[in-house]
């Protein structure tokens, strides 16, 4: 009887652990592989809000997904940009890199022009300029 109880408890624990890793918050301070510090990120929407900023003319283009991983020592980022409007949109984007203390880890990137077809998605990818760059913001600006 005792063995059965222990086995059931063990199975329950494993099930919970399995469900927890599925959410993707396997490492404290990270969500979907991206650094979040002490910010509360419970979903992909939260992560996108935390990591995206608009500058200059605002655009209707929005990231729908941001995922991070490590390429050796460097942080690698994939961001999916979505144009859900019925017209072609032109934007510019750049990444801003921060070190562990929140200071700039490299000089400001150049703005990168991008054209998105109507009702389309585009994945933009980048890698950190150096190993000190451990956090980032994706900056978007309309070019219309």
């Amino acid at each position: 009887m005792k063995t059965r109880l222990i086995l059931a408890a063990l199975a329950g624990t494993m099930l919970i652990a399995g469900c927890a890793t599925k959410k993707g918050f396997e490492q404290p301070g990270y969500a979907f592989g991206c650094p979040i510090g002490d910010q509360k990120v419970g979903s992909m929407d939260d992560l996108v809000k935390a990591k995206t900023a608009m500058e200059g003319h605002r655009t209707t283009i929005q990231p729908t997904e941001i995922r991070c991983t490590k390429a050796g020592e460097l942080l690698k980022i994939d961001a999916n940009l979505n144009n859900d409007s019925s017209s072609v949109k032109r934007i510019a984007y750049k990444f801003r890199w921060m070190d562990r203390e929140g200071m700039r880890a490299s000089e400001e990137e150049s703005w990168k022009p991008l054209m998105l077809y109507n009702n389309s998605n585009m994945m933009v990818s980048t890698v950190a300029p150096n190993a000190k760059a451990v956090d980032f913001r994706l900056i978007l600006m309309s070019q219309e």
Partner: protein
Amino acid sequence: MKNLLVLVAVALIAAGCAKEKTAYGDARGVETVTNQFGSTDLQLIAETMARSMQQASVIASGNLPIVTVQEVKNKTSEYIDTRSITDSIRAELQKGGRVRFAVDAPGMTQQIDEVKRQQSEYYAKEAAVEKGQMVGAQYRMEGNITSIVKEVKNTKDVYYKFNLQLWNIRNGLLEWSDEKEIRKTTTR
């Protein structure tokens, strides 16, 4: 006739009085003044290539490989300072701290001149650099830029392709290569 002359004179005075206005801009902003190769293209290429090269296994391994910069051939129909592109790529890689650069062919004369100068009677012998101490590169970086230009009555389309390669000097193997494509269209 008199009226016409007066009009011309007034127009000339007005043109002469038009005030020039100068303002500083964002050196890293998107530049679309013409569809010729511009600062945004240079910055896009340099950043993309440097970031991509940093992920090459010979660089990511952390062994601080020594690279020399060779020519990027300009195969386009317009004048492009390709040295400026490789300078930017080199600066970006240098800041990444994972690559060292050996003196390249255009800088060799200055390097040798400086070594010779230090070996002259004006310098203390114990502090002067000796001949035969320079370190050769393990890898060489070279590439090319090509373009396809198409123009009809009101539309001009320019497509650029920049290709960069990293070659192992010892065994002649291609260790890394990447491309960046840019399309610009101007309509009147």
